């Protein structure tokens, strides 16, 4: 479905992303993990043609993403609040996104009914999005990405600002989507969430893919071992144990 070839992104001479080859099959659920600055958001932004690669290309459905608009018809994404229109209320925004994707008001009502486990009353209030809390903003953005029923769904840190109930709701929702054949690409700092949801994990460090593994029961332990705390205090703690 989506393939990255020889992809390189540099900022003022520093290479922040360098991916030789990554092919994401249709229906795959890919989890991207890595520390801050590892290049996760850069990679997702390149898939969405928000930033331009210095070298290489991202292909979606066989055609390059850059310079084309075909992928917009089946791809939705929520990376951060820059994907939200601040002066609309959440309902108006969802309605607007729906209209852009050929859905009407009653579709929206059905959708909200079906997804009512994910949001509280705030989403239905007349507050504008700019007045919402970070968590509710993210919920609005995630709902807007889910509403058009995309074939490809791209989310950046979707769990970060969510409350525990919404986190587990979203995990279930993503698993169901995966079962229905949606291609999902999701990044997260939370190793537990990502291993529960995804069937393939890519580990980035300084822009390079260090590990590319399919998720099994042991994956979480592997990842936790990799991301072990470093430094004086961590050693002290280990020794005490």
């Amino acid at each position: 479905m989506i393939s990255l070839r020889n992809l390189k992104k540099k900022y003022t001479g520093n290479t922040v992303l360098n991916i030789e080859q990554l092919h994401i099959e249709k229906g795959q659920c890919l989890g991207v993990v890595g520390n801050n600055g590892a290049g996760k958001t850069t990679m997702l932004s390149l898939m969405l043609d928000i930033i331009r690669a210095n070298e290489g290309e991202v292909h979606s459905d066989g055609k390059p993403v850059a310079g084309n608009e075909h992928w917009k018809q089946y791809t939705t994404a929520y990376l951060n609040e820059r994907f939200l229109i601040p002066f609309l209320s959440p309902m108006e925004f969802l309605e607007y996104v729906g209209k852009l994707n050929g859905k009407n008001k009653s579709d929206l009502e059905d959708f909200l009914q079906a997804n009512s486990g994910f949001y509280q009353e705030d989403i239905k209030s007349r507050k504008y999005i700019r007045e919402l809390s970070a968590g509710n903003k993210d919920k609005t953005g995630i709902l807007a990405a889910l509403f058009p029923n995309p074939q490809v769904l791209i989310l950046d840190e979707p769990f970060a600002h969510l409350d525990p109930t919404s986190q587990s709701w979203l995990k279930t929702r993503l698993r169901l989507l995966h079962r229905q054949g949606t291609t999902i690409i999701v990044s997260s700092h939370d190793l537990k969430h990502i291993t529960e949801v995804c069937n393939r994990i890519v580990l980035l460090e300084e822009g390079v893919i260090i590990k590319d593994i399919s998720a099994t029961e042991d994956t979480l332990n592997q990842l936790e071992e990799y991301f072990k705390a470093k430094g004086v205090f961590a050693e002290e703690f280990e020794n005490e144990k």
Partner: protein
Amino acid sequence: MIELLIHQWKEKTRSPFWQKSIFLNIILGLLGLYFILNFVIISFFADKIIESVYPGKEVTVVFSGLLLYYFLFEIILRFFIQQLPVVSIQPYLLLAVKRSQLIRYTIIKSFFHFINLLAFLLILPFFFKIILPAYPGTFAINWLFIAFSFIAFNNLLNFSIKKYFSQKPWLIAILLILVAGVAYGGLTERLSITEGFSGLWMAVASLQLGFIIPLMLVFALAFFTFHILKDSFYSDNLSKARNRKTLEWSLLDSFGLQGDLLKTEIRLILRNKRVRNQTLMFFFFLLYGFIFYTDTNLDKQFVMLFTGLFLTIILASNYGQYFFNLDGQFFEFYITSNISMEDYIRTKYLMFGLLCFVSYIITLPYALIDPKIGFINTAMVLWNIGITSWLFMFACTYNKTAFDLEGSTFMNYQGTGFTHFLGVLPVLFLPLFIHLIFRWAGFGEYTIVFLGIMGLLGIVFHHFLISLVKAQLKKRKFIMAAGFRKK
């Protein structure tokens, strides 16, 4: 307290605003200097001016009376340009600084504003030149105290006005009309509030301890302001969302997707403080016709052309200067959503055209002065919709700053870049340039027809022009998006 002021100074000098464009800083600096000089000169030569306009009257009395207009006008001006320093205080609320001290600091800080400097400059030269030498010491001191009290009073009043009026723009409009009425009544000598005003001023200044009265008023207001601020430090604007009405645009809904796109553009203008107020303010500029359409000007084609050009774009000018920058805060939404670039550009174009058209319709009655005006303005609105729109759009793809939708309204140059002065403004004057060339070549009278036809062609071939903007936007979108991301 002093530490706080130092922090605030650092915030001002280290603000990214100053680092952005030296060019803009120089222009702003010159503008500030220009105002300062104006006020000093007016104040210094006030006696000469007053003697020539109101011969035989006592200069001080007339000057004091005229200050009433300034103070009334200042109330409105302050509402627009004086930002209250409340927001920058937030980080301190958690620190071990006393709440009351923070509030006092907020009030004191508000006095360090350019507008207060201007008021001082309007009063001091006159005081030193006229009042100090001519009147007894106590009167002079009292007079000065009263004048300062007015400045302080206005400064403090702004807190209350901002709190109670900012949600109701029509109250400001009423205030504006009231001030205009008072000024009109005074200037045509039908109603003379100023005489009573200056009479009272003189009477109070003549008392032995006259300065105590205005001083007490100022302190009373300061006390009141203190309490307003104390409350607002806790408030969390919950009521705001509750009584919000959503307009249902049933007419637009019948236009399908295009209607929805347009609806969002209209909401962009109506729901964001800075865009809305600036657009509303431009309504006043529609009155410029009364200044320009005078008997002597009607025969000057250049002036007529300029006025027509100006009046038929005025409501669209703010929107058009910042086409894509207005979406800067959520540009990613538009470049990744399922909306074709053509639709996106066409919506921007339609909105611009609509605003031009509204300006044109509102100013069309000027044609009653001379039918020629109707003819010229029709040609100019065609030009603005058909040509200026596209040139603005091209210029806007080079502006990389996101427009701060919620910023202050007046004298706010955020989002204005170097390219602005090179791109947007020259475009406005292009027709005048064309006219000069035509006149030089001896076809001066055909400029209007030429511009009108060009505009019409621009409208007819908008598909082609959209594709040009699309190609440009495709090339520039990464650079624009990267610029918009920077705060």
